[in-house]
C-alpha cells in the first residue's frame, strides 16, 4: 500500500514537473510534444493452462531546441500491467532442477510486473563544432550486433524483440570528432563513488566500407546469488562485482553481404573471466526478402544444459546476463507481403543444448501512425533446455499508436 502511494506521489510529481516544463516551453513555441500509446497482450500456454499478461504503456516525449547548439529532450513512461503479473520462474524449469530448491525458498523465485511511472530519459545536449556533450538520463547503444551486443554493458535485448527501445541511463557523454574518419567517445555514469561509477572510452573509425569501434569499459555488474536470501534487503543476496571489459566491433560489406562482428573480453573482480563474440550477416534479395543471421558465443553460458543451475536461469530471466547457453544462432527472414504487411520468421537455435525456438512474426500498418506487431513463439527443445517445451508456447500482440 505504502509502495503504491510512493509510486502515485512520484508519478504526480514527475507529471507535474514535465507538465510545467512543457507549458513553459510551449509558451516559447519551441517544444515538440510527441510519443505513443501501446497496448499489448502476451500469452503463454504453460502446463495445460493459458496465462495472459496485458500491458498498457503511454510514452510522452518532449523535445526542445533551446538554442542553435542546445537541445533538451525527455520522455516519461506510464506502464500499467493486468492479468498474470507475477511469474514464478520455477514453473518453467525442469522438475529435476526445481527439486534442488528448498521448499521454503520457492515462493521467492518470482518475476513481478507492477505498474510504474518513470522518467525514462531527460537530458541536455550541447553541440559545438569540436564536440557534443550530453548530460542526463539517455539511451546508450553500443555495438554492431543485431540481437546480441557483447560490448553493450548497459542493455540486454530481448531475443524475440531485439529492436525494442532500451531504457535510459544517467551519464555524462562527450563525443569528439577527430577529423572526418574518427570519433572519440568518453562516458561517465555516476554511482555513489568514483570506484563504483561506470567509465567508458570508445574510438570509432572507418576503413574503406567498414566502420570499426574499439571500446574499454569499467562497471559494477549488478548480480545476485539466487541460492541465498538476504533478509535485511528482503531480496536475494547482492553479489555485484567490478567488470572490466575490452572489446571491439565492426560493420561493413563483404561480397555483397552486410557483415558485422563484435567481441568483448571481460575481467571479473571475483568470478571467472569470460568473453562474448558475435558474427552476423544480412542480405536483401531482388524479390525484397530480407535475411539476417547471427552467431553468438558467451563463455558465461554453459556448454551442457545439465549444468544449468538456478543461478543461471534467474540471472538469464532477470536480464542480469545475456545467455544461459554457450553457443547460439539467430536467423530472421522477412518479406513484405503487401505495401502494408510484413511477414517473417525468427529462429533461435542453441547449439549447446540442441533446443530451438520458432517465432513467426507479422507487422501491419493500420494507418500512418498506427501499427500492429504480433508474433507466436514455439519452443521445441527438450525439458531443461533454454528453448525447451516446458518454457511454454505462446505469443504477443501489440498495437501502437503514435502521436
Amino acid at each position, binding site marked *: 500500500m505504502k509502495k503504491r502511494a510512493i509510486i502515485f506521489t512520484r508519478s504526480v510529481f514527475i507529471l507535474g514537473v514535465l507538465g510545467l516544463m512543457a507549458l513553459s516551453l510551449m509558451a516559447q513555441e519551441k517544444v515538440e510534444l510527441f510519443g505513443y500509446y501501446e497496448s499489448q497482450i502476451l500469452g503463454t500456454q504453460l502446463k495445460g493452462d493459458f496465462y495472459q499478461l496485458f500491458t498498457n504503456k503511454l510514452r510522452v516525449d518532449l523535445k526542445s531546441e533551446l538554442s542553435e547548439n542546445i537541445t533538451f529532450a525527455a520522455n516519461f513512461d506510464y506502464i500499467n500491467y493486468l492479468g498474470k503479473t507475477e511469474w514464478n520462474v520455477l514453473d518453467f524449469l525442469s522438475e529435476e532442477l526445481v527439486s534442488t530448491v528448498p521448499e521454503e525458498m520457492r515462493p521467492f523465485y518470482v518475476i513481478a510486473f507492477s505498474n510504474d511511472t518513470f522518467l525514462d530519459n531527460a537530458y541536455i545536449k550541447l553541440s559545438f563544432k569540436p564536440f557534443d556533450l550530453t548530460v542526463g538520463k539517455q539511451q546508450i547503444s553500443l555495438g554492431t550486433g543485431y540481437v546480441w551486443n557483447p560490448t553493450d554493458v548497459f542493455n540486454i535485448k530481448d531475443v524475440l524483440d531485439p529492436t525494442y527501445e532500451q531504457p535510459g541511463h544517467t551519464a555524462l557523454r562527450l563525443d569528439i570528432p577527430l577529423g572526418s574518419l574518427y570519433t572519440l567517445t568518453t562516458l561517465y555514469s555516476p554511482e555513489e563513488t568514483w570506484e563504483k561509477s561506470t567509465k567508458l572510452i570508445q574510438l570509432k573509425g572507418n576503413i574503406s566500407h567498414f566502420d570499426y569501434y574499439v571500446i574499454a569499459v569499467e562497471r559494477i555488474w549488478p548480480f545476485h546469488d539466487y541460492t541465498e536470501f538476504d533478509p535485511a534487503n528482503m531480496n536475494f543476496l547482492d553479489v555485484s562485482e567490478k567488470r572490466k571489459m575490452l572489446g571491439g566491433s565492426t560493420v561493413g560489406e563483404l561480397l555483397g553481404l552486410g557483415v558485422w562482428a563484435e567481441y568483448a573480453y571481460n575481467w571479473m573482480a571475483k568470478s571467472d573471466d569470460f568473453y562474448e563474440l558475435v558474427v552476423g550477416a544480412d542480405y536483401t534479395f*531482388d524479390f525484397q526478402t530480407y535475411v539476417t543471421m547471427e552467431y553468438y558465443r558467451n563463455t558465461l553460458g554453459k556448454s551442457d544444459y545439465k549444468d544449468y543451475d538456478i543461478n543461471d536461469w534467474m540471472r538469464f530471466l532477470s536480464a542480469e546476463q545475456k545467455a544461459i547457453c554457450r553457443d547460439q544462432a539467430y536467423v530472421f527472414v522477412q518479406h513484405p507481403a503487401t505495401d502494408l504487411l510484413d511477414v517473417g520468421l525468427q529462429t533461435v537455435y542453441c547449439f549447446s543444448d540442441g533446443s530451438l525456438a520458432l517465432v513467426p512474426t507479422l507487422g501491419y500498418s493500420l494507418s500512418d501512425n498506427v501499427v500492429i506487431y504480433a508474433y507466436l513463439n514455439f519452443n521445441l527443445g527438450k525439458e531443461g533446455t533454454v528453448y525447451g517445451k516446458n518454457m511454454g508456447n505462446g505469443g504477443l500482440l501489440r498495437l501502437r499508436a503514435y502521436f
Partner: protein
Amino acid sequence: MKQLLHAFIIFPLLVLASYGQELTGKDIIQKVNDTINVETSHGTAKMTIVTTSGSKRTFVQESWSKDKGEKNLVRYLEPQRVKDQAILMLNNADDIWMFFPRTQRVRKLATHAKKQKMQGSDFSYEDMGSGDAFIKDYVSKRLEDEENEGYDCFKLELTRKRESDMSYSRLIIWVIKANFVPVTIDYYDENDPSRKVKRLVQSDIQVVDGIPTAMKAVMFNLKDNTQTELEMLEVEFNIPLDDSLFTERALKK
C-alpha cells in the same frame, strides 16, 4: 518582323534538331546525369503510397545532396511514426547509414539495402537515385526518337553491365529533348529483360534556380498494381552546404 520572329524560333529549333541527331546514347545519358545531379540541393517532398486496396500512406521528408548526388541525407518529418528517422548515403550510396531515433541507434547498411522498399513505397532506395548509376551501372543505346507525355523525346535503352548489381536488367528512358529531363522510365525485371515491372512518370516540370525540375513523379508498380506519388513541396539548388552535414554526427541531430 514576322520573318525575323520565325528566324528566331526556327533557327534554334533546326540547330537543336541537327544537334540532337548527332548525340549518341552515351552523350544523352551523360546530359541526363548532369541535369539531375546538381552540385547541391535541398528540398522537402511528400510521398503518398496508394495500395491495392486504395489505402493511402503519406510521408514527408527533407533531403540534402552535395557533390552532384555523391552525398545524400534524407530525414523524415512526417508521420510521427518515423519522424527523425534519417538515412545518410555517401560515395554514390555505396556507404549507407540509417538512424533510428527511438533506439538512438545508427546502423550501417550494406548496399543490398538499396533494394529495399523505401518505407513500404514503390520506390526502392536504388530508384531514388544513387548518383551516377545510369552511367556507372548501365550501357546506353539510343533508340528511335518518340513523343512521350506530350514531349518530343530521345528514347534510350540502358542495359545493365555484367559487373553491376542493380536490381533491373534494363531500363527504357524517354528524355525530353528540350531540357534532358527523363520524363518516363520503364524498369525491367532483374532476370527477365522482357518483363516490365515498374514505370516512373515525371511531370509538372518547372525551372528552379535555373535547373529544369520535375515537381511530381509517380512510380507505378506493375507487379503489385500499386503506385507511389512523390511531390516536391520545396526545392532549391546550388546552395552552400557544409560537408559536416553529411556525417554520422549530423545524422543523429
